[in-house]
């Protein structure tokens, strides 16, 4: 069963104040998404891409220009936020400062007029789950960022919503606390098995938390898939460069044919990389496109390597790994190695690229160029 369905969803903010109507001014454009029951879905994209707008439309805080939203089997377009049976946890904690943690968690149930004993039972049930049992008597000002966020989520899930919506809940926390809280959220959602939509601009957060990621840019869905799918099989150049750190190397290339073999060649560079056989059906001599390869799929060849000798432009020893940058034309191509050797700028290494791991993108549109399936 679907937990949430978005059907041709559009959002246009009213520009009536402006004289000229902007042509393509949709904040969200033709968004289609199906989240299965119990699935954790991240909406990921740069700021201003429409991910929060989408979340607010699902919550009912924003009008829908066109399209349909179903929570479970119910069409909720016309329902008030309070009737949609959703839980909200936003970036700012928005707790009631005069109430202690218990009071904050119980607030929504009290407002609904739920029986006192029933409320108490529920709060006691949820508190250990969120690890806030020893905080119940504390006031919000006494809590750390991570604790506040746990209370915030407890408050959202105590009503047993059909759908949990979270908007950048970790962006207020610093590095270490953030990492720890990420782990906690993941374990929690795993326990309560509530369908969750999670907005973030941090690809790492999306990759580590979500069952599926919807990557959005300029209001348009770019790809919807599992973390592994979007990482290994990106739909276009935008997804390829947005997911992964350091980002995928993307270089403009001209493909040339020497005898029976195709090679990627690059302007102002000696580097040549054999084109994997699977692309032979889509390339020809002189074909221009972009080639993408992840930094961990660029290797340093051994002494007998057939790789192209290249000069190291940057060498960064990061302790756990080392990163090397090489100029290919005017692009700095990065590679990651766990090799213990300490190189320095100016050293020559033989560069090998895992041809089978390369992706091709259209030079104009950025779309993936895929090999033809037999």
């Amino acid at each position: 069963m679907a937990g949430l369905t978005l059907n041709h969803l559009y959002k246009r903010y009213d520009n009536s104040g402006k004289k000229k109507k902007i042509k393509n001014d949709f904040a969200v454009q033709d968004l289609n998404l199906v989240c299965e029951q119990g699935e954790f879905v991240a909406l990921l994209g740069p700021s201003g891409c429409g991910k929060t707008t989408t979340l607010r439309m699902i919550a009912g805080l924003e009008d829908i220009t066109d399209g349909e939203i179903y929570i479970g089997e119910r069409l909720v377009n016309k329902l008030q936020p309070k009737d949609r049976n959703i839980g909200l946890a936003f970036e700012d904690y928005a707790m009631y400062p005069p109430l202690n943690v218990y009071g904050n968690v119980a607030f929504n149930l009290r407002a609904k007029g739920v029986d006192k004993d029933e409320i108490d039972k529920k709060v006691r049930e949820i508190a250990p789950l969120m690890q806030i049992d020893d905080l119940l008597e504390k006031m919000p000002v006494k809590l750390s960022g991570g604790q506040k966020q746990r209370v915030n989520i407890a408050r959202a899930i105590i009503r047993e919503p059909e759908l949990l919506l979270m908007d950048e809940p970790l962006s207020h926390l610093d590095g270490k606390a953030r990492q720890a809280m990420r782990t906690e959220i993941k374990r929690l959602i795993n326990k309560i098995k509530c369908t969750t939509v999670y907005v973030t601009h941090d690809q790492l957060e999306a990759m580590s938390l979500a069952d599926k990621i919807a990557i959005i840019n300029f209001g348009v869905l770019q790809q919807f898939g599992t973390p592994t799918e979007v990482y290994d099989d990106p739909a276009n150049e935008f997804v390829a460069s947005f997911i992964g750190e350091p980002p995928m190397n993307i270089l403009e290339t001209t493909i040339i044919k020497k005898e029976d073999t195709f090679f990627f060649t690059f302007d102002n560079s000696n580097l040549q990389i054999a084109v994997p056989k699977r692309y032979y059906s889509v390339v020809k001599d002189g074909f221009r496109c972009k080639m993408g390869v992840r930094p961990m799929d660029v290797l340093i060849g051994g002494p007998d390597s057939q790789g192209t000798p290249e000069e190291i432009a940057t060498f960064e020893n990061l302790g756990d790994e080392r990163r090397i940058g090489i100029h290919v034309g005017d692009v700095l191509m990065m590679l990651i190695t766990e090799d213990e050797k300490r190189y320095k700028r100016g050293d020559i290494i033989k560069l090998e690229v895992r041809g089978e791991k390369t992706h091709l993108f259209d030079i104009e549109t950025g779309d993936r160029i895929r090999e033809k399936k037999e």
Partner: protein
Amino acid sequence: MARIQLENVRKAFGKVQALDGISIDVKDKEFFVLFGPAGAGKTTILNCIAGIAMPEEGLIKFDGEIKNLIDPAHRNVAMVFENYALYPQMTVYDNMASALRSKLYKTPEDEIRERIMWAAKTMKMENLLERLPSQLSNGQKQRVAMGRALVRTPNVFLMDEPLAHLDAKLRNSMRTELKEMQANLGSTCIYVTHDFMEAMALGDRIAIINEGKIVQIGTGDEIYYMPCNEFTAQLMGDPQINIFDARIGEVAGGFTATFPVNGEEITVSLPEDGRVYSTIKEKGLEHVDIGIRPQNVKYSFEAKEGYFKATVYSYESIGNKSVIVAECGDYQLRMIAPNGLSVAIDSDVYIRFELDRSIFFDSVTKEYIVRYDEQTFIDLAKSEEEK
């Protein structure tokens, strides 16, 4: 460019001893990193060098000359801050020229133009010169702030978390660029950061600062492989190094380590290593804290000879690879795994340590005792320093 020395510098803010006897000796043309958690006193050190803060005790010397009583303007230092500090009403060009046009320097306009063009080229921002700060992205603003420091020929560049405001991606690419630029510049630079990757990548040497004191000074390799205590070991590396308490036992011809995992006592033999074995004998060690980095912890999802059982607490991607966190009772173990495994939370995981990569700390004082292959890492650190 100059050699910068601090000798026993102390500075208090009210009751808080911000700097508690700081001594550093930054060589001419060195890239020196001050690294530590928030509130450690890193920025206060920079401010003392710049002359913005006055130490109560201790000396600040540029090329051997005492500068304590010289005012900031006459110390000729160039600062780059986290929050860019650009003049919003001036174009990039004028922002860069502002210091050179000041009463103090009164540089002729031709020369100003020449220097700005050079700095703009170095920072790859020739196309931005006519823009106003409001028309720049955060990365570009930081480039301008650095370019503005470059046009001068200061005694030292002081950089206070210049990349902290940028998002992760931009921070990494700017870090790489900064590294490339530094090689071309050949200038003394003191750089404050709380990001260990920046510290490792940029610093010729790193000083670890905590609570106003220097914890350790050394090359990146030295600090990473031979941290002077557990605090330093935990700062260097992401995910953090695993540290757990173990009991040392003696068996025929060798030693073992015993530690609890979910209530069960696990005993593993300690691989033979001359220096480790002799240290255990000489010091009569009975307890140690074993430090082992996540990449040296191996896992299996089936029971295997030499592996012990624990429970999966979490499995998450950290970009190019993933981390499995295993619950072991009083502590957790982090280990590196590839992306895309299907690992169920609370399922069993079997673990083995590559103990020949481990570091031993005193379980009471938390100080470094010895590590495996110590000589190799001493040599490595030495060769780094010679470079």
